[in-house]
């Protein structure tokens, strides 16, 4: 059978550095094809070439047996190739329905008609999203649903999903996989990029693995297992390094109580939640999406404000604090490493050094009147080395880095502030296995140095493997504290959902 998409000898170079090198890739009709690799392996670049987002430096693409060259994503979409991006590309100030129909509007549109058809369409996909809701009011998971719905709505023959499940809850993932199977049954071909290897093994028909921009393995899913995939992805076996059984006899002992949060409330998102954070420990915070864990810690970091009346109390070193801006928290030594690095964590078009320097500015450790380029360069050189940021040179713009390296820049931006408490919110979301291991080492080293570390994660093995104590958040409250000695995935999940 002739593949629906055939890519031959694809090379794409940025500033003469190839992101993908001479890659051959086939996608058959009605198959789910998992594309795996470390961050920076070239997965996104390869699929962006397919979807017309970037033009290849060399190589040939055949779509439905005809050679094609898409210059814009719109051309690819018209032809039937849609891409659901890792970071959603919706218009936040428009409604869900308007986003669904964006680019396919008629000359005259009846808003009510759009809402009704959008409602029917979303229901057919089993997505519980209000079509009249503004996208900016939606959580990450719901935005992802709208993004997926938009691709399906354009009647695409080929859909590329770039990390579609990163922001979804287990329940939402089940719905998403059912949707993939329905699309497959309708003859839609799917490229599925994920860092969750179990998902790829479970859902895909074929697997292709890239490493450093080159194809290293491809074949039916039945030929692969987790170990083989990881070995192919990173060129070494990471088994035992990541998510191995935790040695609970060496938990870090709590040091001095740094932060005490008592009954803080913020609207309906955070409700009377109380907890403490101690020095020299990793406090893991688990909760499903919408459980208020991010919001709780954004209040601590001064990004959100707790309720004016009956908003509770926060004490730092037994002194009450109420931050009105994040910089106040930063100056008190609280660093927040965001879960949404693109919009909150980095200045994409600025260099690594400039981003790191921004961290110093917000900590008040530079006056900002005189920007010293030498200091910026030194900062970039120091931290690219310390955090092992893989880059062409230290002047590189952050947008040119892979997801994992961008994340390291965000972490570096927090660490240059010399904090005493670091809050990591989903530190390894959208990050490849090798970078995950490195980020985990950074987090552990901070706790070993005596810093108070908070790690928010919705990935249970990560929580269980790193945390010295585990807090479980549900419906805006910390409902349970577990020690890794007694914690099991079932116990944590039970607390999170019941």
């Amino acid at each position, binding site marked *: 059978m002739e593949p629906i998409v055939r890519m031959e000898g694809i090379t794409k170079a940025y500033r003469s550095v190839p992101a993908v090198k001479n890659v051959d890739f086939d996608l058959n009709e009605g198959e789910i094809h998992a594309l795996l690799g470390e961050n920076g392996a070239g997965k996104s670049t390869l699929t962006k070439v397919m979807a017309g987002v970037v033009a290849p430096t060399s190589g040939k693409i055949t779509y439905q047996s005809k050679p094609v060259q898409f210059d814009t994503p719109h051309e690819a979409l018209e032809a039937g190739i849609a891409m659901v991006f890792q970071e959603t590309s919706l218009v936040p100030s428009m409604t869900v329905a308007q986003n669904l129909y964006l680019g396919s509007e008629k000359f005259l549109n009846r808003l009510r008609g759009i809402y009704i058809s959008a409602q029917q369409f979303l229901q057919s996909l089993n997505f519980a999203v209000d079509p009249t809701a503004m996208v900016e009011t939606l959580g990450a998971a719901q935005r992802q649903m709208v993004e997926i719905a938009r691709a399906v709505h354009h009647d695409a023959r080929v859909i590329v999903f770039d990390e579609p499940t990163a922001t979804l809850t287990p329940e939402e993932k089940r719905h998403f996989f059912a949707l993939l199977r329905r699309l497959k049954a309708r003859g839609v071909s799917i490229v599925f990029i994920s860092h969750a290897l179990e998902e790829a093994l479970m859902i895909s028909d074929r697997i292709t693995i890239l490493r450093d921009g080159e194809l290293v393995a491809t074949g039916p899913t039945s030929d692969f297992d987790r170990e083989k995939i990881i070995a192919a992805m990173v060129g070494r076996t990471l088994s035992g390094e990541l998510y191995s059984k935790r040695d609970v006899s060496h938990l870090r002992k709590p040091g001095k109580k740094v932060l005490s949060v*008592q009954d803080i409330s913020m609207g309906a998102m955070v409700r009377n939640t109380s907890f403490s954070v101690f020095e020299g420990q990793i406090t893991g915070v688990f909760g499903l999406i919408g459980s208020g864990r991010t919001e709780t810690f954004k209040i601590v970091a001064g990004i959100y404000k707790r309720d004016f009346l009956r908003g509770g109390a926060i004490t730092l070193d037994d002194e009450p604090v109420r931050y009105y801006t994040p910089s106040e928290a930063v100056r008190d030594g609280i660093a927040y490493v965001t879960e949404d690095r693109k919009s909150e964590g980095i200045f994409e078009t600025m260099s690594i050094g400039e981003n790191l320097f921004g961290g110093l500015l917000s900590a008040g450790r530079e006056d900002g009147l005189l920007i010293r380029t030498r200091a910026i360069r030194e900062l970039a050189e120091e931290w690219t080395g310390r955090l092992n940021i893989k880059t062409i040179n230290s002047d590189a713009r952050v947008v040119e880095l892979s997801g994992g390296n961008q994340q390291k820049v965000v972490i570096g931006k927090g660490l240059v502030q010399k904090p005493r408490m670091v809050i990591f919110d989903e530190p390894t979301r959208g990050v490849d296995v090798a970078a995950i291991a490195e980020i985990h080492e950074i987090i552990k080293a901070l706790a070993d140095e005596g810093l108070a570390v908070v790690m928010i994660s919705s990935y249970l093995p990560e929580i269980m493997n790193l945390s010295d104590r585990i807090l479980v958040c549900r419906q805006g409250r910390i409902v349970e504290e577990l020690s890794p000695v007694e914690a099991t995935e079932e116990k944590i999940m039970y607390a999170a959902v019941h």
Partner: protein
Amino acid sequence: MIFDPILDIFRGKAITIPPLDGAFRANTALDDAAVFAALPGVDNLCVAGGTLYATSGATLYTVADGAPQEVETFDAAITALAAAPDSTLAVALDDGTLMEEGKPADLPKGVDCITALAYGSNGSLWLANGSDRHKASDWAADLMEKNAGGSVWLRHAGESFRRIAGGLGWPYGVLPQGDGDAAIVSESWKHRLIRVGLEGVDPVLDNLPGYPARLSPADGGGAWLAIFAPRNRLIELVLQETHYRYDMIATVPRDYWIAPALSSNRSFLEPLQCGGIRTMGVHKAWSPTRSYGLVAKLDDDIAPVFSLHSRANGNRHGTTSAVEFDGRLVVASKGGDSILAPEVM
């Protein structure tokens, strides 16, 4: 922000409950504990001359081999119990009587709500008078009226009682310090422990997550603190709502007040029910609750070290007393009708 002190006038002072973490991290040690003896309504525990004494209602028991043996029944409920250095017992009753060596002792006027007794090593007797308005059994009313009429008294051997501290919110436990001229006192309604002596009153541990009850010395230093009920948001709210509170006191039977309790989940008329408590028939361990079981180990500096819990879904609640006996800790769970022997020592 510099305006916060002004804004706080309008916001009001935040009434917050400290989290159950650190030394107070929740566990199931009391629920997992063996039953040392079943004794309905067990309240005070005390060791004298190698014998464990317990009280329930108006009756004094000895407890040996897991079986309570009745020693004596008094005219009113026993509210406090202490052993003198010579192993004789002092027994306080709900009618305001203090019995020493089988005879009523002389008490100053106004001392008729004895909640705790303890002898110092120099033979002095410390006495906590919970309230100047209510009997010891009316503790819930005293809390709901937000009284602070408790006092602590000291009697040196051969002398009469003299008041050491007053204006306290239900002093409920006394632990003499040193030779007996100072004591640590648990002040329930203020959720704190204070050091009381001839020099005055000095807070030593505040912002406890519950209502502290009796104190007893621990072998090797430090102390055991029984906490008889938890704080929760609803009760804190009711305590701020004066009109609601007085309406509730006037019209609702005491068992169903929105107030701390020694046991709960025994009647459908109780406050605090529904999905926040129980989901699909499973009682959530972390749900808001009126009753709880909690015993804390304190170090020499009266800082909490660790704690033993019976959580919202447990039933060893209302821990009013904890003492060491025969090399082990025994805990009176008044709400759980039993004396427990948790595995901690």
